[in-house]
């Protein structure tokens, strides 16, 4: 029983990080049909922002907020500078652009900081754990679950209640019609990138405080995870990416916990095997979405 509760907690914690990762990727995809390969680098930006801000001994919350803002700003900047000029060209042009942005950001980190890992100061409370009825609850996991839950709720409210949020969902349905109603395409797309960047920032903070260090390639793993979660969950809706994220998190924790010691090194191989099985049985992903195949010029 205790093992099981421990497992649930860890799965929820990792799953909610994965869900946010996937959401940030799919919110841009839903509107532009673009898989933004520079998404991982936004997570990296958050990490370096934390690293840059940590000197003067500011409160952790301030560092976290700074890191999230940095990722959001960089995301919007990449849209304005790199993606907008090629938006009316082919989808391939945007895809290649996203690779270019990714490389550019990574190399900037290499040049400006260092190719070697930089340690980030992690709040020591995060490493504590609370004993509760024989259960060891990691503060880190609890914070992750609470933060991700709050972000999901806030995002849900934004998309349901605000006009801009409603416009974002409408853009994924039928962008041409949205423009016919007078909503500026640039504004909607910039908003999508801003949300994507903020999500990457939150993920970045949670991810980097888990690892304790930031490197120029720190975003590669989260990008891959987000991609898998999105594909498994279904690329055509926000719900799919959340489902995919939690599923992948649960799977990872489950295998970690229950695989015999001698095959534990092959954990990821097992994960991918499950992913392949899911895709063979349900190529459209677990959650059926509604996004059309159209793309805005």
């Amino acid at each position, binding site marked *: 029983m205790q093992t099981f509760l421990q497992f649930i907690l860890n799965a929820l914690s990792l799953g909610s990080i994965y869900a946010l990762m996937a959401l940030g990727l799919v919110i841009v995809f839903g509107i532009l049909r673009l898989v933004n390969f520079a998404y991982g680098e936004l997570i990296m930006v958050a990490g370096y922002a934390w690293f840059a801000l940590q000197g003067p001994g500011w409160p952790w919350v301030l560092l976290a907020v700074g890191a999230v803002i940095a990722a959001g700003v960089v995301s919007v900047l990449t849209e304005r500078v790199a993606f907008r000029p090629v938006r009316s060209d082919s989808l391939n042009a945007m895809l290649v652009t996203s690779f270019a942005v990714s490389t550019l950001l990574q190399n900037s980190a290499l040049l400006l900081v260092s190719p070697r890992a930089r340690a980030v100061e992690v709040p020591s409370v995060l490493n504590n754990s609370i004993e509760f009825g024989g259960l060891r609850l990691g503060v880190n996991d609890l914070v992750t679950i609470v933060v991700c839950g709050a972000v999901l709720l806030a995002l849900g409210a934004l998309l349901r209640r605000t006009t801009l949020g409603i416009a974002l969902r409408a853009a994924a349905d039928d962008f041409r019609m*949205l423009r016919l*109603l007078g909503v500026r395409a640039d504004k909607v797309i910039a908003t999508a990138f801003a949300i994507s960047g903020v999500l990457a920032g939150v993920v970045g903070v949670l991810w980097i405080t888990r690892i304790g260090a930031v490197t120029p390639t720190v975003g590669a793993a989260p990008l891959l995870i987000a991609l898998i979660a999105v594909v498994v969950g279904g690329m055509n809706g926000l719900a799919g990416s959340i489902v995919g994220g939690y599923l992948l998190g649960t799977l990872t924790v489950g295998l970690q916990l229950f695989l015999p010691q001698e095959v534990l090194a092959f954990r990821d191989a097992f994960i991918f095997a499950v992913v392949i099985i899911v895709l063979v049985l349900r190529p459209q992903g677990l959650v059926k979405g509604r996004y059309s195949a159209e793309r805005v010029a």
Partner: protein
Amino acid sequence: MLAINGLQVRYGAIVAVRDLSLSVAEGELVALVGANGAGKSTTMAAIAGVVKPSTGTITFLGQSLRGRSSEAIAGLGVALIPEDRGIFPSLTVEQNLRLGAYLRRGQKDLGKDFASVYRRFPILAERAKQGAGTLSGGEQQQLAIGRALLSRPKLLMLDEPSLGLSPTMVDRMFELIDELHRDGTTILLVEQNVRRTLEIVDRAYLLTNGRLTASGTPEQLRREVDIAGAYMGGRAAAAGDISEGRTG
């Protein structure tokens, strides 16, 4: 209000509309009629900025629409209800309407306009919180029109509003367009149902293979019925539609 001069639109090598000139005056109800593929929808799409004309001018209230984005054209007061109605299925009915009022967000009299849309289309009030994707074809068309009206358009363009609707709903649609016209809305209408259309419009343009082949008041068009019938694919039905006039 709207003036089109020498308009040509191409899709690659295909010329969808060639050398088209037409005008719509304020308060008028004008129809574009013609067979499938005659270029009616393309003309509307060009006005709304969805497709870019290769030559020709489009002026609306004295301003050239060339090179403007569709959101900018909407901002000038042109509303297009496309043939597929453009309902957002992921949103509720109410959220769809809210986006219709996007250009007027923050205005005080918006609540009054919402109330008047709900009064005109009671079914929308009933289904306000329901997903728009669950509406029937006729309900979706009402939603599309209600949504367009909320932007208080200076020019309302309707592309085949009666398409795919039940006969009673078609009646209702033509009544509604007539009503909106009487209320003073300037309307450009594309319709397949020529007979019904000629009953309510002030003037009509007949398009054939992207060219203007006849224009004038419904009476004038009915007089030119042979020409019209021939151009409309020589279909007796189409010619019959026009000559039958009000009866039938």
